[in-house]
């Protein structure tokens, strides 16, 4: 596919990397000559230096033949205008824009082919907030992914010593957790995805990705040694877009404290929130934190705009006795660096945003794409369409589908919330199939598999 990416920030870079690996033709437009040059050195892409929403720049970037425009510059207005321009002048079929300001996003009427013609609005703040709230729901989980409107979830965790499943074979799991159905999608041992069979033994130190119904997750996590009680007290460092949204979504269920440095912003946030204690001060101010009983906090979540401040304040919070600390880290290089340090979870808004954009770029009816941080692996939800004649999957039993190497079908969600694990299930139309791909390069074969052949109308 011919794809134009507008922007030279980390999201654009992340997107470029993934799309290049999947053999798309990518052109990147941005203002920063140096950044673009570095991208061109690293990947097989074309770069254009210029203002991303100017018509002649878009034309130079090939907007006339492009299949898709992805506007992810840091400026909402530029993104919107760019989509509008390429729609009006070059009839680009698919336009995705990153819009951060909630003020725009609230007005659904703004977006449509006759108004501001953006097909999909991506809001990193919202996606990141959702992501963090899911992590807070399950203490100990490294990643939590939603499928089928949140009825099914995939959780990545490290099994801890003391869990009943440690040292057990995969085939024995069912016997230990009292009839709960779950499926282990993969185990990363020393950063390599293992080839699983019934004989694989779960060890501490693994990273394990499993799939089960939402209501059972906590029990399963206990079986993996995560005996922590439910999170109650949460401290958020930074009252920006993400911090504010996060407090808003959490304050009903948890005790939330939010630290914000800027007086005006703190006032504003305090005004908008009802149950949150808003503190005015520096996130790395030890006295303030100790005064506010930091040692009793279950989660410390640093979401300021500054990577370094987030990392440092998280390290300090961990030392001061917080159970779980999470840092928002924009730079991809830092994300890898933090992995396995004192900081429990590094949240990369880029990776999360890229995932939500990928869901729209992929062919076929792919509804969710999540990239596992630090790995090339992806988990995907795809809807099967067609019938036995036109589709390669519909009407075939799961274990009869010829899957390419490195692709696993985890489960099928039928109807509202029937989660089906049985390998002899015959896939029906409109089933949602949950797939694990060891390497994002292999995702193209999933796309092909689920594409309905041309004879199907």
């Amino acid at each position, binding site marked *: 596919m011919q794809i134009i990416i507008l922007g030279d920030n980390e999201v654009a870079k992340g997107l470029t990397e993934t799309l290049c690996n999947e053999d798309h*033709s990518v052109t990147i437009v941005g203002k920063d000559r140096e950044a673009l*040059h570095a991208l061109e*050195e690293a990947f*097989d892409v*074309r770069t254009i230096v210029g203002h991303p929403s100017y018509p002649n720049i878009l034309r130079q970037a090939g907007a006339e033949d492009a299949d898709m425009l992805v506007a992810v510059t840091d400026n909402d207005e530029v993104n919107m205008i760019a989509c509008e321009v390429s729609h009006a002048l070059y009839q680009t079929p698919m336009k995705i824009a990153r819009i951060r300001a909630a003020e725009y996003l609230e007005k659904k009427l703004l977006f449509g082919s006759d108004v501001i013609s953006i097909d999909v609005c991506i809001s990193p703040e919202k996606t990141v907030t959702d992501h963090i709230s899911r992590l807070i729901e399950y203490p100990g989980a490294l990643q939590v992914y939603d499928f089928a409107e949140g009825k099914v979830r995939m959780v990545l965790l490290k099994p801890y010593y003391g869990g009943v499943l440690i040292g057990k074979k995969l085939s024995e799991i069912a016997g230990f957790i009292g009839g709960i159905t779950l499926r282990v999608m993969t185990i990363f041992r020393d950063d390599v995805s293992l080839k699983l069979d019934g004989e694989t033994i779960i060890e501490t130190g693994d990273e394990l990705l499993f799939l089960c119904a939402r209501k059972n997750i906590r029990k399963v996590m206990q079986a993996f040694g995560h005996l922590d009680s439910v999170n109650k007290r949460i401290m958020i460092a930074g009252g920006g877009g993400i911090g504010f949204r996060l407090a808003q979504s959490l304050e009903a269920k948890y005790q939330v404290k939010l630290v914000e440095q800027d007086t005006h912003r703190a006032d504003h946030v305090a005004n908008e929130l009802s149950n949150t204690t808003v503190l005015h001060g520096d996130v790395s101010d030890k006295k303030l934190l100790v005064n506010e009983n930091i040692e009793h906090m279950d989660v410390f979540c640093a979401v300021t705009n500054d990577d370094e401040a987030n990392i440092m304040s998280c390290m300090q919070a961990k030392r001061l006795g917080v159970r779980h600390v999470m840092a928002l880290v924009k730079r991809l290089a830092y994300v890898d660096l933090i992995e396995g340090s004192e900081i429990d979870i590094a949240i990369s808004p880029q990776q999360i945003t890229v995932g939500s954009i990928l869901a729209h770029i992929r062919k076929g009816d792919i509804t969710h794409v999540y990239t596992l941080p630090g790995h090339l692996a992806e988990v995907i939800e795809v809807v099967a369409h067609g019938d036995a004649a036109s589709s390669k999957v519909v009407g075939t039993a799961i274990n009869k589908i010829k899957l390419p190497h490195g692709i696993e079908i985890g489960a099928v969600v039928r109807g509202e919330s029937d989660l089906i694990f049985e390998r002899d299930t015959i896939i029906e139309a409109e089933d949602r199939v949950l797939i694990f791909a060891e390497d994002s390069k292999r995702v193209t074969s999933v796309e092909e598999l689920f594409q309905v052949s041309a004879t199907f109308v």
Partner: protein
Amino acid sequence: MRFKAIIRIIGFILMLFSVSVVVPIMMSLIYHDGATGPFVITGVFELALGFLGWFPLRNYRQQLKTRDGFLVVTLVWVVLSTFAALPFYLTPEVGMNVTDAFFEAVSGLTTTGATIISGIQYLPHAILFYRQELQFLGGMGIVVLAVAVLPLLGIGGMQLYRAETPGPMKDSKLTPRITETAKALWFIYIILTATCAFSYWVAGMTVFDAIGESFSTIATGGFAMHDSSFAFYHSNAIDIICMLFMFLSGISFALHYTVFQRRRFLDYWYDVEFRYFVWIIITVAVITLSTLMINHVYPSFEDDVMHGLFTVISLATTTGFTNSKFSAWPTFLPVLLMWVGMVGACGGSTAGGIKVMRCVLLCKQSMREMKRLIHPNAVYLIKFGKQALPIETIEAMWGFIGIFIATFAVLTLVLMALGMNLLTAFSAVVDTLANVGVGIDGVSDSFEHIGAASKWVLTLSMIAGRLEIFTLLLLFTPAFWQK
């Protein structure tokens, strides 16, 4: 340095290159010229050694770093030239020693067109065709071809492409993906070659000649298929066709592609480098024609035009075809034409030389310095068309011209030390460094009678010229080899 990756790529390209003996073998079977053996041996050698390099490392996938690209490209040119020399060396009818065979092969691949052979038309057909074919392969670049057809090069492709493509705008891609760009360039190249061959045939050449001559026309090579080059045909029509296609090959192939895609012929004129290129040709042509007329070199004005214009275009595009003995032209003309060859044609074309764009930039930069002396506080940007150029482009231009002149001076002095006179040495170096291929004074007919040492120096000069010196010269700097 990722030697395994480098050996793997070179092995593969060598295997690919072995295909080049297929047509000559067929030729020699058709014409029974007895050159089948040497070509079969060459092909088997290339295939076997390429396979030995590639097969053990076929699963070794590592991305090339920028500096690996320079090594790969230089090695490809040296290795392929060596193998390409085998048929010349092995065929008894040609009877060349190692030096001559290597010189001829390099001259072919680098599209220089300087030849050692006299009595070209008496060569076996296979050898004759093979010389032209080498020019065809070298014209657009073997590595660019490899990037186009070998998916295995992957991301490293850009590094290789940049190290081989001539001209100051090495980073500009026609399409987002490098393989598509390389395919587009080869597509245009083949279309031009086919049209050229067809036109020659219509104008009266034999099929064999038409194909052969078109190969070296579009590659701006200059290997002719007869001793007397284009004078052999005595045909104004053929000369005119040749002029047209040499001119087209001197234009950036990226520009051809854009025009082809958008189908707007005015785009040629909007390209600034193209306009300067045209002006250079017109200016030099006017000077040449008036000098020829004043000195009554040819009996009629028609002859002046046919010979004068042909030679100007042939030299300006660094092709090196001749339809007259221009080295005997009066006064300053031969040397002027050598300088025109040194300037060369547009960047991104198949021509050699410094390139029009760089020369224009050089002039603009000098003008700017003069203006600065008059208005010390004024701000002047170097513009090409309406666009101000980034300072890196200007710096790169200075760097290139500096190194070009230095190389030029050193090589001329070395040749003089080996016993050539100034004019011959000057001409020989322009011929090889700018890939022109036709000289004046001592090298006006062929390079047959110069010493073996001089031939090796000139061989080096040809490869340096084709790879725009830096790619080759880099390998001799300690920094390149430091970890």
